[in-house]
C-alpha cells in the first residue's frame, strides 16, 4: 500500500531527490506495516532523536498504518 512520508525541518535534506519538499513523497509499504518498521527504513541518521506524527496526530511505533496515511517525521528539537 502507499503512504505519504513528509520529512520536515532539517530532515528535508534527506528527502529522495526530485521530490516536492512540502508535499512529501509517496512510499510503498507492506499492508498492515507498523510505524516503527517504516521509520527504521527512512533515510534519516541512525541514533537521531526524532518525533513522528500520523495524520498530524500523536502515534506509537507499534501502530498499524493504513493506505493513504501521512507519516511526518522531524527532529526532536524543541520549541520557539
Amino acid at each position, binding site marked *: 500500500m502507499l503512504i505519504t512520508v513528509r520529512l520536515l525541518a532539517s530532515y528535508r535534506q534527506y528527502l529522495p531527490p526530485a521530490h516536492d519538499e512540502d508535499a512529501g513523497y509517496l512510499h510503498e509499504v507492506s499492508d498492515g506495516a507498523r510505524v516503527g518498521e517504516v521509520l527504521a527504513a527512512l533515510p534519516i541518521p541512525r541514533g537521531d532523536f526524532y518525533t513522528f506524527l500520523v495524520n498530524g496526530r500523536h502515534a506509537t511505533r507499534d501502530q498499524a498504518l493504513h493506505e493513504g496515511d501521512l507519516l511526518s517525521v522531524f527532529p526532536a528539537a524543541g520549541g*520557539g
Partner: protein
Amino acid sequence: MHGWHGRILRVNLTTGTIREETFSEEEAHKYFGGRGLAIKVLLDGMDPAADPLSPDNLLVMATGPLTSTPAPTGNRYMVVTKSPLTGALSNSNSGGVFPTMMKRTGYDLFVFEGAAVKPVYLYVDERKAELRDAIHLWGLETHQTDDTIRGETAEDVSVACIGPAGEKLALIAAIINDKHRAAARSGVGAVMGSKNLKAVAVRGDLKPKLYDEKAMRAVVREANSQLAADIRAGSTMRIYGTSYVPDVTNEAGVFPTFNFQYGQFEGTPRINGPTLKEHFLVRHGGCYGCPLACARITEVKGEVWGEQYAGAGEGPEYETIGSLGSACGVDNMAAIAKANYLCNELGLDTISTGLTIACAMEMYTKGIVGEEQLGRPLPFGNADGMIAMIRAAARREGFGDEIAEGSWRLASKYGHPEMSITAKKLEFPSYDARGLKGMGLLYATSNIGASHMAGDTAYTELFGVGKKIDGLTYEGKAELTKHFQDIFAIIDAAGLCVFVTLRYAVDTANGYIPIRVTEMINHATGTRYTPDTLLETAERVYNLERLFLVKAGFTRADDTLAQRMFEPMPAGPLKGETFDLHRVLDDYYIARGWDANGIPTRQRLEKLGIAHYA
C-alpha cells in the same frame, strides 16, 4: 557572596535619588534568582492593587546568579512589574548582551520606583549610576535611541529602551535591548513610558565571584562538548533557528490561522524555515557567549521583494511568524520580516501586536468594523494593512490607538470579546491550546497570562524532546504543567535561556529533572540544592507570584482561556477538538496545594516558609 554581587540599585524617579541596597545570601537562596528576588521586591514594596501606569508601580530589572558566568547562555534577564495590559504580573525575559553587561555593573537588580517629571535615562558604569536627561531622545525609535546613547556615553555600552510605543503607553509595548531583543510581553514598555524612563544603559567588567570555579568550568566543559556535538550533527535550531517550527505546528494542526479560527495555514511553505534561510538569512546571531546562536540576522532587499518591505534586522522568530504571519493570513515572508523589524524599532511586542491586528482583521471580515473606523480595508492576508496598523499603533494614530490597547480591549469595545485570543488579556503564543492540553492549562493558569515562556509543555507534547507524549490527552497534564512552570521558573531565575538549558542541563529523558542546572547553581553560589530542593524553591517563587495576583484581585474565574478554545476546531487533524478546562483545573490546583478558588493554602505557604506574605 558568590554568583551574586549582593547589591540592588534602587532608583527613585520622582525624587531623582539613587541608592544602593544589599541583600543577604539567605535571601538570595530562599527567594531564588532574579525572578525570586524581584517578586519579593514587588510584594515588599508596592500594593498589588495599584494602577500599573501610576508612580506606585515598581519596575524591576533582574539578572540571575548564572548571568555573566561561564554557564552556557548565562545571558538572560527578567523585567518584573505589574502589567498594564493584564493587571496581573509581568515577568518578561530577554537575552542579548544587555543582561550580561547589566550584571557587570556590579548590581544584580535595578529597581525603579515613582515617575520622573521629564524624560530621563539611567546610565550605570561600574557602580557609578546617574539619571540623565532624555528629552532629546523622546520620540526616537529604539535603534536611534541606542545609537545616540552610545554616542554620548561609551562605545561598549549596552542599552535597553522603549520606542514611541512605550512613550505613548501602548499596552502592547516592549522594552527592546541591543536593538533586536525584546522583553516583550504584557506591556512592560508602557510601564517604562509611564515613568518617563526612556532607557537604561550599562557597561562594566565586574563579574561576580564563583564559589567553586574549577567545578563550574568542568560542568561547563561537559555541557559545551554536548552542545558542540549537537551542532556538528546538524542541529535544527542551528540550521533554522525557531523558524523551523511552522512546519511542525502546521502538520499537527495547532498553527494559528486567521486569528485561531483554524490550525493549518495553506501558505506555510512560504513562511517557514527553508524560505527564511534561502531568501533572507544573512548570518546566524546569538546572545552573549551562546554556542548555539539560534538568532537569524536577516535582510529584505527592496529591489527583490518590494521597497515597502525593505529593511534589515533580526528574525522573524517562530512566534512572530505565527502572530504576524498565519494568524493574520499573511503568507509573505518579506512582509512578516518587515513587520518584525518595525515592531523592534517602534518598541512593540510582536505576539500581541500580531494577534490584535488579526482580531481587527476578523472584525473587519465579519462586518463589525469597517473602512470608516479603520481608515482602510483590512481583510486577512493584507500585509500592507498590517504594516500600516503597526506604525499607527506605536504612535496611537487613527485606529492604531485601538490596536495599542491589545485585542481584549479592542474586541470588547465592539462587543465581541470572543475574537480576542487571550488568557488574562495576554495574547496567545503560536500554539492552539485545543491540540496541546498541557499548553492550554499553562495559558489558563499562568501568573502572567498566555505565554510559552512560562512553561512550554509543547517540548514534550509536540516536539518530543526527551519523550513524546500525546498532546490530546488530559491525564497527567495537571502535574506536567505545574512541573514545567517550576522548571522554567528555575531557568528564568538563574539567568539562563530555556532553549539551550533544556538541551544540555535538564534530564529531559527522565521527566525533565534539572540535574546539571542544579550543579551549576551550586558551583556558582555555594548552595547545596538538590534537584528536588531547587524545584521546591521554584515553587516558592511561583507561589509568591500567585499571591501577587490574589492581592491584585484575581480569582479562579480568571484562570481561563479565550472562548474559541472551548469550541470545536473546524478542520484539519484536530477537527472537532475542544479544550475542556474542567477536566484539569481542579487537579492543577490540587497539585499546587491551592484551594478550589486557586488560592495557595495556608498549609502550603507555611511549608514553603512564606505564610507571612499571605
